[in-house]
């Protein structure tokens, strides 16, 4: 069997052995859940509840009229004790609804299985997905319902299902594919129906042979769903790269996958779609991989949205004494945080990675020796060294000419650089500057 892959990329080692064999177990529901009103890219929600209100599990507690947004739901039953703020994964302060748990686990009346789900139309599926607050659960947290309505002139032919999980350490997608392959296939069929796609292509890296086998078996009777083993290489699970690997088509610069008739969805998102459409359960819980040498007992936990990260750390035995870095997500793209306080699990939290003193290295930035390794590994075929030197000299127009905005910030260039230059960070700065300059120019007109 030939393995599909892309050009460029790196092999950082997978570090998955600590948790890949550990089935997900339900975490203790939090005593107080802090549910951020913005857990997605797009407009934040307005609260629909007030302090003192009693809420039930699955009840919608925040919504917005904006098209790019997703409602949020109570993940426990209990009483609203505060509408305050907490921190987001990016370190920003966001509004949140604080619910005190009554531990009754009373479901809201709207949460009920839909026996006629097979008769639902595409529009009805999209509506259910929106109401369930489903967002991309691979980490980007883009509202899913918005992606399910592609532009009229860009019909979707392929649904690309991302089971690559190329970030080292993380195993939440791996576990979900092993534990719920039938629901995954069901979710994929629903997504296909919603966008009227002909085919679904599920891509899984070959370091997860058991997941490939499980999903292949579950999809055995589905002629329109193909499962593909992919070469284990970072960033195999990047939307654009996966798209090209599975269909041979490149997503044009500045466009979404829909421009080439594709829709990329993460496996966990597909399962959330199945949960919402067939069982009426909104997006209130997900698997989180808590791992790294900085945590005493690495685990895969099934966690309610809004659970404070501090409680999860405790449930995993706590930090080791030499813990020095806390990362939300994987080590290649996840942000490092100043601490676990005031930070809840959101729909996009796929992992919590704790690194120890010995693993946290600080490097002196040295001059570029033009070895060209960043050029070799860049999956977007950019020139990271030229982009970085443009940023060093504040020449953002030059960075734009070298296509800074096409950078996917995968981190391969920084990873490989022998001069330990923070290339990804600098290119990220260029992207922000270029976008800001465009906004200023538009405002001036």
């Amino acid at each position: 069997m030939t393995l599909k892959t892309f050009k460029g990329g790196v092999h950082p080692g997978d570090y998955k052995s600590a948790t890949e064999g550990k089935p997900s177990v339900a975490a203790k529901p939090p005593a107080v859940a802090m549910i951020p009103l913005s857990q997605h890219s797009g407009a934040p929600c307005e609260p629909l509840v007030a302090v003192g209100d009693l809420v039930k599990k699955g009840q919608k507690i925040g919504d917005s009229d904006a098209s790019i947004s997703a409602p949020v739901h109570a993940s426990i039953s209990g009483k609203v004790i505060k509408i305050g703020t907490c921190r987001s994964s990016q370190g920003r302060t966001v509004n949140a609804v604080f619910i005190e748990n009554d531990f009754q686990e009373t479901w809201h009346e709207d949460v009920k299985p839909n026996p006629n789900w097979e008769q639902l139309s595409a529009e009805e599926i999209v509506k259910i997905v929106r109401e369930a607050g489903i967002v991309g659960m691979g980490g980007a947290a883009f509202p899913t319902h918005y992606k399910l309505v592609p532009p009229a002139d860009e019909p979707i032919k392929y649904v690309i299902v991302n089971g690559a999980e190329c970030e080292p350490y993380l195993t939440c997608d791996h576990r979900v594919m092993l534990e719920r392959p039938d629901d995954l296939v069901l979710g994929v069929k629903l997504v296909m129906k919603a966008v009227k796609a002909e085919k679904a292509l599920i891509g899984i890296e070959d370091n997860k042979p058991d997941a490939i086998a499980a999903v292949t078996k579950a999809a055995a009777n589905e002629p329109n769903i193909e499962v593909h083993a992919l070469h284990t290489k970072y960033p195999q699970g990047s939307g654009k790269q996966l798209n090209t690997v599975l269909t041979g088509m490149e997503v044009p610069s500045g466009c979404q996958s829909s421009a080439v008739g594709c829709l990329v969805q993460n496996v966990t998102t597909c399962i959330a779609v199945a949960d919402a459409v067939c069982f009426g359960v909104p997006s209130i819980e997900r698997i989180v991989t808590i791992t790294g040498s900085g945590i005493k007992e690495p685990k895969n936990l099934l966690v309610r949205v809004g659970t404070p990260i501090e409680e999860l750390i405790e449930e995993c035995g706590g930090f080791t004494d030499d813990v020095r870095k806390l990362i939300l997500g994987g080590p290649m793209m996840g942000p490092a945080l100043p601490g676990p306080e005031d930070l809840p699990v959101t729909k996009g939290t796929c992992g919590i990675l704790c690194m120890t003193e010995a693993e946290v290295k600080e490097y002196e930035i040295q001059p570029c020796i033009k070895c060209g390794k960043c050029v070799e590994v860049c999956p977007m075929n950019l020139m990271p060294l030229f982009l970085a030197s443009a940023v060093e000299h504040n020449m953002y127009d030059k960075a734009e000419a070298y296509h800074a905005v096409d950078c996917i910030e995968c981190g391969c260039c920084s990873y490989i650089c022998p001069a330990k230059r923070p290339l990804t960070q600098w290119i990220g700065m260029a992207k922000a500057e270029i976008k800001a300059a465009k906004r200023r120019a538009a405002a001036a007109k």
Partner: protein
Amino acid sequence: MERKFVVSSSPHLRTDETIKSVMIDVLVALTPAAIAAVIFFGYRALITMVITTFSAMLTEAIILRNKNIFGDGSAAVTGLLLAMTLPPAPPWWLCVVGAVVAIVLGKQVYGGIGSNIFNPALVARAVLMVSWAGHMTSWISPVDLTSTATPLVSSNAPGFLQLFTGATGGCLGETSAFALLFGAVWLFYKGHINWRIPGGYLGVVFLLGLALDGGLTGGLFHILSGGVMLGALFMATDMVTSPVTTRGQLFFGIGCGLITMLIRFYGNYPEGVTYAILLMNALTPLIDNLTLPRKYGEVAK
């Protein structure tokens, strides 16, 4: 307990490779050629290598006010590479002057590591060649250690086996093609060089030798004699002064090969490797910008 967490930008994983480890890899790769030089030319070769390497490291340490004389290892590489381009037993002061020129004029005046346009060792060799041509061309025969001519101007050319193993007159690092190839395998293995520059360079030299200078024997003679092997494997592949794009690297190698052969056939010098690589070094930024890869998702304008 108050815990302090390090906040830094992703990625949080890095390779263990540093500039220093890359430079050490280059030194390791040069070791077989250095040993071969000592075997063929005796202790004088060792003295030459020690003087140039040490002088280069000392010069750089003084300029950078660096207490650790090895520093990032790049000066040692420059010094040893320079020794490879010198005759086996030059006067000691020639080695020192060469090393100082390499570090000061070849590298530090541009701003130090990574900023130089030309290969520092070759800048020094070029300066020494025009200043002390006599010293720079006093070859000794590795067989009986008497003076001899470089095979490129000699009327009774050595056999291929001799050229390949290195039992022939020439600069320290020019003689043994085998030792150079053997060392370069390490650089290939570590991913510091790829086939494009050496392939383009040696390919063009071989083809032109084959076509214009006596067929297969001519082709083989041209890649095994003089500084071509050293140049193609260790000088043209210098990271700082060669292109970073894949196509650019191939063009760079081809250009080096063409200029080398032009000088060998039509120039006043018997050997053209130094000037070929220096000329192509000057074109490197241009080559890079003319051979930018097609970026992912690029749409025709």
